[in-house]
C-alpha cells in the first residue's frame, strides 16, 4: 500500500476527520487574530502564551484540577501580565514576553517533574498530535471561534485604529488599553485551543504566518482579513495531510507548510516587482 493510499484510508477514520475539523477551526481562529498580532508588532506574544500554557497545564495535572481550564486561567492571567508590562514604558515588549515565557516554561517543567510526568504524552503536547483532538475539545474550539468573531465584530473599527496607531487612536478618544488587553486575552485562549493540534512549541507560528503572508499581498485591510484565513486554512489542511503521509507530528508540518506558502508569496511578489522594473 502506497503512502497516498494509506492517507486516503486514514481519511475515513473518525479521529482523522475530527483532527481536520479541529484544524479548520484553529486555522480560522488563529489567522483572524494573526493580522492584528503582526501589525501590532507583538508577534512573539504567542510564544510567551504557549509556554505560559505549558505551566498552566502542568499545574492543572499536578493539582488535579481540570488541566485545560487551569491552563486557560493561567494563560489569561499571563496575557494580562504581558500586556501590562508591554504598556509600561519602562519594559521593552520582547522583554515582557521573555519574562512570562521563562516563567511558564520553568513552572511547567517543575510541576511536570514533581508529578513524575502524570502519564501524559509530553511529545504530543509539545509538537501536536492528531490523536489529542477529542470531541470535547472540538466543541470548545467551535465556541471559542464564535466568541472571537463576536469580539472582533463588537468594535472592529476601533480595534483596527488601535492596531494602526495606538497614539493616534488614543488621541481620537479611543480607550486603547481595552483593545490591547482584549486582543491579548483572545490570543491566549486561541493558544489553549490550538495546543492539541499544533503543539506548544509551534503554536506561535500559527498566530504569525497567516497574517504575515496576507500582508505581503493584500491591497487593503479588508483583503488582509480575508486572505489570512485562506493562508491559515491551507497551512493547516496541507500540514495535517503531510503529517499523515510522513507519520510525524502535525505541528511541524503545519508550520513548514505555512513557511513554504510565505516564501512562495514573497518570491512571486519579488518576481512581479522585478519584471515591472525590466
Amino acid at each position: 500500500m502506497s503512502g497516498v493510499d494509506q492517507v486516503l484510508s486514514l481519511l475515513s477514520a473518525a479521529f482523522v476527520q475530527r483532527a481536520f475539523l479541529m484544524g479548520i477551526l484553529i486555522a480560522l481562529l488563529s489567522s483572524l487574530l494573526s493580522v492584528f498580532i503582526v501589525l501590532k508588532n507583538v508577534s512573539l506574544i504567542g510564544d510567551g502564551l504557549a509556554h505560559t500554557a505549558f505551566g498552566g497545564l502542568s499545574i492543572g495535572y499536578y493539582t488535579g484540577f481540570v488541566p485545560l481550564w487551569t491552563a486557560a486561567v493561567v494563560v489569561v492571567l499571563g496575557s494580562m501580565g504581558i500586556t501590562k508590562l508591554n504598556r509600561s514604558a519602562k519594559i521593552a515588549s520582547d522583554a515582557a514576553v521573555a519574562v512570562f515565557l521563562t516563567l511558564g516554561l520553568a513552572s511547567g517543567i517543575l510541576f511536570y517533574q514533581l508529578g513524575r510526568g502524570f502519564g501524559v504524552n509530553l511529545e504530543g503536547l509539545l509538537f501536536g498530535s492528531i490523536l489529542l483532538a477529542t470531541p470535547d475539545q472540538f466543541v470548545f474550539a467551535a465556541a471559542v471561534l464564535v466568541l472571537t468573531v463576536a469580539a472582533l465584530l463588537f468594535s472592529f473599527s476601533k480595534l483596527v485604529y488601535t492596531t494602526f496607531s495606538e497614539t493616534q487612536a488614543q488621541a481620537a478618544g479611543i480607550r486603547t488599553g481595552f483593545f490591547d488587553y482584549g486582543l491579548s486575552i483572545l490570543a491566549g485562549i486561541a493558544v489553549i485551543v490550538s495546543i492539541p493540534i499544533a503543539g506548544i512549541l509551534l503554536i506561535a507560528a500559527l498566530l504569525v504566518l497567516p497574517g504575515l503572508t496576507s500582508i505581503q499581498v493584500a491591497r487593503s485591510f479588508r483583503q488582509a482579513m480575508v486572505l489570512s484565513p485562506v493562508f491559515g486554512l491551507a497551512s493547516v489542511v496541507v500540514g495535517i495531510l503531510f503529517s499523515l503521509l510522513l507519520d510525524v507530528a502535525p505541528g511541524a508540518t503545519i508550520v513548514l507548510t505555512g513557511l513554504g506558502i510565505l516564501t512562495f508569496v514573497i518570491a512571486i511578489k519579488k518576481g512581479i516587482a522585478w519584471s515591472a522594473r525590466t
Partner: protein
Amino acid sequence: MSDATEPVVELRDVVVEYPGGIRAVDGVSLRVSRKEFLGLLGPNGAGKSTLVSLILGLQRPTRGTVRLFGEAVHPVSLRRVGYVPQRPQPAYPDFPATVLETVLLGRAARARPFRSLRGRDREKATEVLRLLDIEDLRNRRIGQLSGGQTQRVFVAKGLVADPDLLILDEPTSGMDAPSRREFYALLARLNRDLGITIILTSHDVHSVTRLASRIAFMSGRIFFDGDPAEFARHPIHSDLEDFPEEAMPKP
C-alpha cells in the same frame, strides 16, 4: 449658538517636569478661541509636542490644568478634535490599508458596537478626499504614496469626523518647498472657509507667521503670544533671520 471667544483649549500654569528635574514645559498659560489659527512656534525641544500631548490627553501635566472645550480632557471631548501627528505613519510600516480605509479610521471613535463604518461614513470620507484633492488616490495602499500625499491623507483622517479643532504637530517636516506651500494654502482654506480652529506647531517661523491669525512662541515658556504682524517686528523674529536655532531663548 456658541460664542466666538469660547475657549476651545485652555492651559493654566502648566508645568511638565521629567525625572531629573528637567522642565519641558515651564508654567505655560494659553487660551485658544473658536476659529483661531494659532501658530505655535519654537525650536526643537521647545516643548511644542509636549503641549500637544497634553491637549490630547496623551500626557498629564506635573502641575496646572488643561481644559478642552471647557472641560477636563476626556475621550468624549477628544472626539471633537482632529489630530495630524508629526510622523504621519502607522505603527507597522507596511500597514495594508487603502487611503479610504485610513481616512475612515477618523470616524472609528464614533462607531457603535457591532456597526461597521459605511454609508454616511463613506460619503463623508469621499467628501473630505475631494476637498483635499486626493479622491483619485482612494484605493491606493497608503505605503505607496509620496510624503505630501500621505500628509494629505492624514489631514483627511483628522477632518473626516467634522472636528471643531484640528491640531497639526509639525506636519511639514520632510516636505519639499512646493508641497509645503500647497499644504499651508490648504490649512488657510480650512480655517477660513470651514471655520475650523487650528493649532499648528512648527519651527518654520516665517511661513507660519504669514499664515496664522495668532502666534505663540515658546521655548519651555511662552516668550511671545499675540498678533503675527507684531511678532514679525519682535526682536526674537528679527534675530531668527540670521540665527534660526541659536537665537532662540532656552528654557
